[in-house]
Every structure is written in C-alpha cells, then in structure tokens.
C-alpha cells in the first residue's frame, strides 16, 4: 500500500460501510483517488464496486465512514450535492431522454438557461467542450439516432459540462466495440491531461492493466488491495485478489468430431421491435456435438436471431431448420417439443417468472407431460420432487423450492434456468449471454455445463459478447455485424491467437472476412 501526500489526494473515503438487507455490500472500505490519475476499481459482479461509487456519487448514503473531497469532509444527500463537489458518475445504463437532442439532454436539470433556451449558443459551447476532450458529438442530434458508444460520450459531456473533476465510469467498456474502446481510452487520457481524475469500474483484467495507474480490488464488499500501482502487479495476481483463488482461464475442451447438421439457418431476415431490419440474410449451421459461437457487439441482431430460432419472433424471409424440420414461423411449442432449449439473455424478464416459486419455474418446459401433469392436473408431489432433484444436481442455493425466484442471486437464477433447459436433454440449445453478470465461480460452472452438453452430443449455439468465452468454448465462431454474418472462424486451439482476435475485432466493426484476408491484417493498421 502506498501513502499519497495529502496535497494531491482529491477523494478520500474512509471506513465506508453500506448494508443492504441481508448483504454487507461495503465493509469498511478505504479508497483514495489522486489528482490526474486513472484509478481502477476491480472486482467481480456483486463485489460492491458500484455500491461504493454510488455512495461517492451521492446516490446512496453510507451507514458509516467518512468522505473527504479535497481534504474537506462532505456529506452528499443527492447526486446534485456530489456534482457540486465536482464528482460525476456515468452509469452503466445511460440516463438520457431519447427524443431530445444532445444539447437538451446536457442542459436538462440545470439552472441555466432559465426560460429562453437559446439553444444555438449552447450547441456551440458543447461542441467546443467535446473538441477539447476528443468527444466528437453532433450537439443537435437526437439521442435515439446515436449509437451506444456516442451516447456514452454524451453522458461524459454531461458530467464535464457540469464541471466534474472526478469522473466515475461504471463498466464503460461493456457496451463498446473494440475500436470504440480505444477511442474511450484516448478520451480518458485527454481528461487526465486536463487535470481531471477518473475512477474506472471494471471486472476485466486486461483493461485495468492497460489503462489504470492504480488499482483497488474489492471482493465481497472488502478491499483486498488498495491503491496498488498497476505496473507492479500481474493479471494473475489481480485475479487472485479478485476471486480469492487462482482462476483457470482456459477451459478443458476435448477435441471431438462433429456430427450431423442439427440447426440450419438459411438466408434469414427479420425485423426488430421497431420494424427495422435486424437480420439481413444470416446463414449458419450447428452440428451435433459442437459449440458454435456468435460474436458481435450488442444490438447487431443477436437477440433477434435467437428469438427467431426459438420461435418467439417471425422471420420475413429465409428459413430455420431443426434436424431437417422447418421451425421458423411456427409456434414456440413446436421447437420445445422437438428438443430445443433456449437460455435467453434476459433472465428476469424472459427466462423466469419472478414471483413464482423455484418449482413453478423449473417445470416451465415440461409441465405438459407426465409425471409433472396427468390429463390436465398438476402433480405437485412430482413437481416438487423434480425441483428438489435439480436443486441438488445443479447446486441451486435456495432455502426451499417454494421460494420465489426473485429472491435468488443472478448466479442462482441462471442455474435454475440452465437446470431447466438442460434437464430436458435437448438435442439443440441456444444460449444467449449465459454468463453475463455472473461471478467467476458461477461462470466456470456454466461453461462446464455447456461443455457437458457438447460431450453429450447436443448442438449448442452460443451467442456472447465475451470474446474470451467464445474462443475458449466454441469449435467455430461466426461474427455478426448489423444483421449480417461477416465471416466464420475455426477455433483450432484454446490459445488465443493475436491475429485471429484482431480479425474478429475488425469483423465486429463491419469488415467482412474476405476483405480482411485480401488486405491482410497488417495493412489495415
């Protein structure tokens, strides 16, 4: 631990305690931020990173502990107080009004301008501010027209405009493509050069070591390391501090020949909820005993693809075949009855019924059949027995199977869903972001379950934004961009190969594979 001189410490948090019912989210955490540094706050999901920073940003009040800003003790009762002290936070979920312009969003809630908006004047002010920090945004653009990456810039501008000296970024890279991440890092460096400080919340080790000057690691609400210079630690050491044990980065995948084509998607077109084209001619296939990955930045048609396959969305053109049967534009039930299982991205809104019990949630796919029901009558004894078996087999931590699933943690809820989807012995499974928001231990469990499916001869389509996950699990990876497949890559070994990752990165931002191969990866730089 290094002691900073009091003169250059901007923010000091001492002994911060924050309790939520049943959880000690922050247990006497100390945190120090120096002027002009990027300080990473590292930890697994649920480690208390966001909680700690929400306290600093005035969203939560600590139960104990003190906060000093520029040496003066402060008490924030709202984010407004925090921003007045120069602390601004960019949340994971943006807080923007889609139908308003960039300028209008930035001015929202401020005292100036008072009544007459005089927007042009402010447009130029904001454009100027953006110029200074390398945040290129059209001030007159409406938010809904902007990509997620640009929306993030608007959020940053909002904080800068309010005079924030300390910027808290909550997992800013989660929504960005690799090229956009580079841009964000440049912006952060520009802000540091301007004398501002940045707190960078992340659970991604490589980003932390790439950008941060110092690192504070949290695990289960406790700081396992504070203010460690990031130059002096290795990724393995950080990972150990984060999870409390050595992490196996690469899963043990046995080579195995692929069987018949189970899922065959041909020239699939579909629209999103707004009626805009989301899939524009996707073709791919998955064979028995094979995990096939779909890589891409969120919102490039992955969700629509999984929904068309699962029968939850109609396609406008093209076909989906499951073991030779056409399943596109048929009832959802048809797929379920023909051995398809689906792990949706949205666990709480699609994958489960939050107020129903664990039992009611695990019988969602097999309640039509004996032994769970006979001639329309549910056999609650059989259902409870089934739920108890799954609880034991899949390590679902829950007091009883009658507990409503809304009380379950993310990892446990995912285990409930996976248990349900796997217990039907599917011959094909679509899994969308199956490890999102889970801690390392739970991720390992999910990976193992997916590999077991592969070994059992099922075909698995894995849609994920985690490249490392895709490369370590998949036999082949398709890359999707704006509803089109940019290319297909065979994963030969679990060792990530730099040029392959770079090629995938380029495909994720819209360069087709043929073009990459023609120009060569090096030529692109």
């Amino acid at each position, binding site marked *: 631990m290094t002691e900073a001189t009091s003169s250059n410490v901007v923010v000091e948090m001492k002994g911060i305690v924050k309790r939520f019912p049943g959880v000690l989210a922050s247990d006497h955490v100390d945190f120090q931020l120096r002027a002009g540094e990027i300080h990473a706050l590292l930890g697994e999901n649920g480690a208390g990173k966001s909680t700690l920073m929400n306290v600093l940003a005035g969203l939560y009040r600590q139960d104990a502990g003190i906060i000093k800003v520029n040496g003066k003790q402060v*008490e924030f009762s709202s984010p407004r107080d925090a921003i007045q002290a120069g602390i601004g936070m960019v949340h994971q979920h943006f807080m923007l009004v889609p139908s308003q312009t960039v300028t209008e969003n930035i001015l929202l809630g401020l005292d100036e301008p008072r009544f007459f908006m005089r927007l042009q004047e402010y447009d130029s002010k904001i454009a100027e501010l953006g110029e200074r920090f390398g945040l290129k945004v059209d001030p007159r653009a409406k938010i809904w027209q902007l990509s997620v990456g640009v929306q993030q810039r608007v959020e940053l501008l909002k904080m800068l405009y309010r005079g924030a000296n300390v910027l808290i970024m909550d997992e800013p890279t989660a929504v960005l493509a690799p090229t956009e991440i580079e841009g964000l890092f440049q912006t952060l460096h520009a802000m540091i050069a301007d004398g501002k400080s940045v707190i960078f919340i992340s659970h991604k080790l490589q980003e932390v070591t790439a950008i941060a000057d110092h690192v504070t690691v949290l695990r289960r609400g406790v700081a396992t390391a504070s203010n460690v210079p990031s130059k002096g630690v290795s990724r393995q050491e950080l990972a150990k501090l984060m999870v409390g044990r050595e992490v196996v980065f690469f899963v043990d995948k046995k080579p195995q020949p692929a069987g018949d084509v189970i899922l065959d998607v041909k020239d699939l077109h579909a629209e999103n909820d707004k009626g805009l084209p989301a899939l524009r001619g996707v073709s791919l296939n998955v064979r028995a005993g094979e995990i096939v990955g779909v890589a891409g930045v969120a919102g490039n048609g992955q969700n629509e693809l999984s929904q068309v396959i699962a029968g939850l969305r109609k396609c406008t053109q093209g076909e989906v075949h499951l073991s030779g049967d056409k399943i596109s534009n048929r009832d959802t039930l048809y797929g379920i009855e023909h051995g398809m299982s689906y792990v*949706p991205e949205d666990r709480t*809104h699609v994958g489960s019924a939050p107020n129903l019990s664990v039992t009611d949630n695990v019988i969602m796919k097999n309640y039509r059949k004996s032994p769970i029901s006979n001639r329309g009558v549910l056999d609650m004894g059989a259902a409870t027995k089934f739920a108890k078996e799954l609880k034991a087999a899949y390590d679902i931590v829950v007091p009883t199977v009658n507990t409503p699933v809304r*009380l379950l943690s993310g990892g446990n809820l995912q285990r409930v869903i996976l248990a349900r989807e796997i217990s039907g012995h599917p011959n094909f499974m679509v899994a969308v972001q199956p490890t999102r928001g889970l801690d390392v231990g739970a991720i390992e469990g999910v990976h193992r379950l997916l590999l077991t499916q592969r070994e059992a001869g099922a075909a698995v389509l894995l849609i994920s934004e985690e490249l490392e996950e895709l490369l370590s699990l998949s036999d082949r990876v398709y890359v999707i961009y704006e509803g089109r497949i940019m290319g297909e890559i065979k994963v030969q070994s679990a060792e990530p190969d730099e040029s392959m990752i770079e090629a995938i990165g380029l495909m994720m931002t819209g360069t087709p594979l043929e073009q990459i191969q023609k120009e060569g990866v090096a030529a692109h730089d």
Partner: protein
Amino acid sequence: MTESTLAKRRRSYRIKIEPRLDEPSAWFPAAVSLGAIFIALILGGILISVAGGNPIASYMHIARASFGDIGVLSDTIVKATPIILTALACSIAFRMKLWNIGAEGQFIMGAFGASAIVLAPVLPAEASRWLFIPIMAMAGMAAGAIWGFIPGYLKAKFNVNEIISTLMMNYIAISWVNFWVFAVWTEGGFQMSPKFPETAWLPRLSQYAASIPVFRGLTTHAGLFLGIVAAVVLWFIVYRSRWGYEIRLIGDNPHAAKYAGINITRNTVWVMMLSGALAGLGGMSEVAGVVHRLQTAPLAAGYGFTGIIVAWLAKLNPLVIIIVSILFGALILAGREIQPSGVPKMIQGIILVCLIASDYLLRYRVRLVRVGTDGEEA
C-alpha cells in the same frame, strides 16, 4: 424544539425504508392486515366522535347488526353470496392481469340468462326444481361467459383495452335488461318481470324450518353453496391444474409464458369467459335466491364493483375471498343499520385504504437506524 436540536436528532437517528429481500413468515401478512383494520377502526372512531356519535357504541352496534344473532348472520351471508361470486370472477381475470371491471355487467347478464329460462319460457312453470335450478345456473353462466367473451376476444384479437370495453359492457347490460323488463316481460307496466314460480327459486334455509326449527326465518339460500363450490373449484384450477399454471405464468410474466410456448391469445379469451361465467352464476344466484324476478335496480347494486375490491383484498386467493366477502356483507348490512349513507361508507373507505396501504409493509421493511455521530456541522 428548536431547529438545531431537530437537526441533531435527524443526524443521529434515521428512519430507513428498504425493500424486503426475504420472504416474510406466513403469519406476517395476516398480522399486518389485522393491524391495518385496527388502525382504520381508530380513525373511523375519531370520525364518528367528530360527527357527534359514540365510537364504541357504534362499533358494538355494527357488530350486533351483522353477527349478533343467527338471523342477522344469515342476512350478512345473503349479502356476501353475490360478492363471493363476483370476487371470484374478478380474481381469475386479475390473476392473468386482465383488468375485467365488467363483473357488474356479466352479473346482470347472468341474471338475465337465468330469468330467460323462466320468462321466455324455456321451461314450463310446473317443471321441477331439479330441472329449473341446474338449467338456470347453466344459462346464467353461459350469458355471463358471452359477456366476458366479447371483450376477451377484442383484447386477444385487436388488443382493445379491456378496462374500457368491460366498463362499457356494464352499461349495455343494464340497458339490455331494462329493455326486457320494460317492453317484453313487464308486470303491469312496472319495471319488473312477474315473480318466478317457487320451483325456480333457490332453496332457503327457512324452508326447512319445519324439521329444523333453528332455521325459522333464515333467508340464506343455496347460492352460498354455489359460491363455496365455485371457490373450491377455482382454487383447484388455479393451483393444481395445468391451465391454472399457465394462467399464473402469464399473469406473472407474459414474456416467460410465451417463451414456455403458452398461447396467450387463446388463454385471454378462455379466462375472460370463465370470469364472465362466474359473475353470471352470481347473477343467477341473486335473481333465483333473493330477488325472484328480473328487475334492474336490486341486481345492478354494485356487486361487480365490490367484487373487484374483495378480490384484491383477498390477494386473489379464492378461499380467502369467501371470508373477505362475508366481512364486506357485514359492512354493507350494518352500515345501513346506522345510517343509509355517509359515515358507514366512509369507514368502509378508511378500512380499504388502510388495508391497501398496509401492503407496503409486506414489500418494504421500515427500520430505525443510528447514523454515525461523526457528522459535524458542515
């Protein structure tokens, strides 16, 4: 207290409200509800004293007037019977988050359908009770189901807001019955049909007074039996049948239901029909058990709307609905006893508001916490 000491207080203690993350124990909801009723009675007591009455005496009077002896208890149950059935009707629709506020109209149409058997006449006046009652019950349920089917189909097919359509259907039902009692089945120009033959009445306890003297003068009729049977059947459907599971799943999360391959469109229509049929059975029970003729005023007395509240207070549980309905029957009966309108209605309202507000305690936990005292004057 000066402002500075107040500020100090606020600094050292704070009331903290946080969402409950664990399931409260089984007795807790019941205790909270009883507490809420108790507080409501205190508030109502204040109201009574302001109005110049004696709260304790008034409450005693209410209790006597609704549960005091077997005669008034019987009257309470007669009042509760239609509410049980309309509340069951609402509960099954609400379970699927279909906001059927048309139980009133479905109830009236049920009464109409049952009456038509007598008045059309479908069955001759000298037909036996064993023929009349089941056929009238079926006709009532069918008429109610049709009245539920229309908004259900519109909702499923064209996404017509069921709140508006069911509400409007209430007025159509009243006007429809008005037309028949004025124009077709009128008794000497009055706004009512002729009285039904006794074979078309639901049997009353008083009919058995000859063999069981205690039953003398008791108006409780077989509609109560219909209500209890309906509640038990509905309980079984909701908690023990495949269909009920689908309804619960759709109600809790329609996206998950679709994901599980459940046809929401079809279930919307079926559930609205079941809901209408239950309200229709209520209408049949009222017309054959109490009114004994088709007449708008005593039938359109707001039972369908009371059913909404009762279903909600019973947390949509069919068996709890029976108990809550009886309490409501008592309130209606005893309220009239003290004052035709006014204070008793207000007390009803206070009880409702307190009960609904108490729900907050089931979802949130309120704690008094000490805040670290190191916060000095900034």
